[in-house]
C-alpha cells in the first residue's frame, strides 16, 4: 500500500474514532458522580474483610480471578521475552560485564558506589514495606515487587555487573517468579478443595488496620509481590546478558568496584 493511501485510511479511521468517542463520551456517567459498584465495595469491604486498602481488596478478593489471569499474562509476556533473548545462547550466563569494543571503561567513582549502595538498600526496604503493607496502606504486591526489582538495578549501577551477579544468582529470579505465580494459583484453587468458589476468603479476616488483615489476601499479595519482583529482575538480567558482547581474553578487573 502506498504512503498516500495509508494516510487516507488513517484519516478515515480517526474520523470514525472521533465520532464514536463523542457518542460514547456523551453516554458515560457524569464526570465526578459516584459509580454504584465501586461505592458498594467502599461500603461493604472494610467490615467484611477487615482491610483498609480497597484497591488491594478489589485486586485480590472481589475481582481476584481477574488478577490471576492478569498475573498469567505478566508471566507469559516475561517468559516470551526471556525465550527470545536467550535464543541460541540457552541458559548459559556469565558474570562478565557489558563491553563495547574500543570504548574505555572508567572505574566508578567512590561517590557513585556509595550513593547507589545506600539507595539500593533504601529502595529494597521501601519495596518490601509497600508489598507487606499492601492490604493496609497504599501499595501492594505489584508496586512493591516492581520497586524491589528497580532496587536490584541500583546495585548494578553502583557496583557493576560481576558484584550484581554474585549478590543474586540468576536461577533464583526464575524460582521466585514461578514460585510466586504458583503460590497465587494455589491460593486461588485451595478453596475449591473445600467446596467453595475459587479464591473464596476462608481465612480469618484479622484486625482492621493490622499488617496481617485480609485473610487469604495476605497470601495472594505476597505471592504477587514475589512473582512481579522475580519477573522484572529476570528480565533485567536477560536483557543485560543479551546486549553485552564478550571479547576473548577480556579481564574483569576493570569492572571491579574501587576499593
Amino acid at each position, binding site marked *: 500500500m502506498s504512503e498516500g493511501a495509508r*494516510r487516507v485510511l488513517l484519516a478515515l479511521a480517526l474520523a470514525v474514532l472521533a465520532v464514536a*468517542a463523542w457518542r*460514547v463520551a456523551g453516554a458515560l456517567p457524569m464526570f465526578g458522580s459516584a459509580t454504584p459498584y465501586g461505592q458498594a465495595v467502599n461500603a461493604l469491604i472494610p467490615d467484611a474483610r477487615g482491610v*483498609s486498602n*480497597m*484497591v488491594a481488596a478489589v485486586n485480590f478478593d472481589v475481582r481476584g480471578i481477574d488478577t490471576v489471569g492478569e498475573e498469567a499474562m505478566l508471566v507469559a509476556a516475561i517468559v516470551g521475552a526471556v525465550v*527470545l533473548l536467550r535464543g541460541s545462547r540457552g541458559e548459559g550466563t556469565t558474570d562478565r560485564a557489558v563491553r563495547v569494543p574500543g570504548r574505555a571503561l572508567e572505574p566508578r567513582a567512590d561517590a557513585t558506589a556509595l550513593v547507589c549502595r545506600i539507595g539500593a538498600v533504601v529502595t529494597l526496604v521501601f519495596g518490601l514495606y509497600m508489598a507487606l503493607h499492601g492490604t493496609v496502606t*497504599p501499595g501492594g504486591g505489584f508496586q512493591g515487587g516492581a520497586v524491589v526489582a528497580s532496587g536490584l538495578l541500583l546495585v548494578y549501577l553502583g557496583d557493576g555487573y560481576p558484584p550484581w551477579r554474585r549478590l543474586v544468582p540468576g536461577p533464583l529470579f526464575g524460582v521466585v517468579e514461578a514460585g510466586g505465580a504458583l503460590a497465587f494459583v494455589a491460593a486461588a484453587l485451595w478453596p475449591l478443595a473445600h467446596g467453595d468458589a475459587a479464591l473464596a476468603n476462608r481465612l480469618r479476616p484479622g484486625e482492621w488496620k493490622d499488617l496481617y488483615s485480609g485473610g487469604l489476601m495476605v497470601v495472594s499479595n505476597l505471592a504477587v509481590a514475589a512473582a512481579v519482583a522475580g519477573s522484572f529482575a529476570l528480565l533485567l538480567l536477560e536483557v543485560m546478558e543479551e*546486549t553485552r558482547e564478550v571479547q576473548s581474553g577480556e579481564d574483569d578487573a576493570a569492572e571491579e568496584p574501587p576499593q
Partner: protein
Amino acid sequence: MSLLPWLVAAWLIGVGVAGLATSRNIVHMVGCLSVCQSATYVLLLGIGFRAHAGPPIFYDHPPGTPAVDPVTQALVLTDIVVGAAVSALLLVIALQVFKRRHTLDPRHLRPLRPDA
C-alpha cells in the same frame, strides 16, 4: 467541563494511533503504543472519579467517608503492570528484528522467510 476527561482520553488514543501509523522505527512504535495505553488510564480514572471524595484507603479516615471508585483504580494498576511486561516483550522483539534484518523501519520489513 464534564466532557474534558473523555476528550483527553480520545485525544491520547488518537495521537497514539497517528504515531503508530506514521512511525518509521519499531522502538518509536512501542512508545506510541504506551501513549495509546495511557488513554485507558485517563478514561478509567475519569470514570472512577467522584467529586469531593478522598482515596479509597480507609486508614486515616474511617470507612463511610466519601471515596473514589477503587475498582477502576485496581484496573489501572493491572493495566500498568501488564503494559510494562508487554512493552518489554515488544522491545525484545525489536531487538531480534534488528539483529536479523539490520533495520528498525517497519516499512522495510518483509514477511519472514526461513532462509533470511
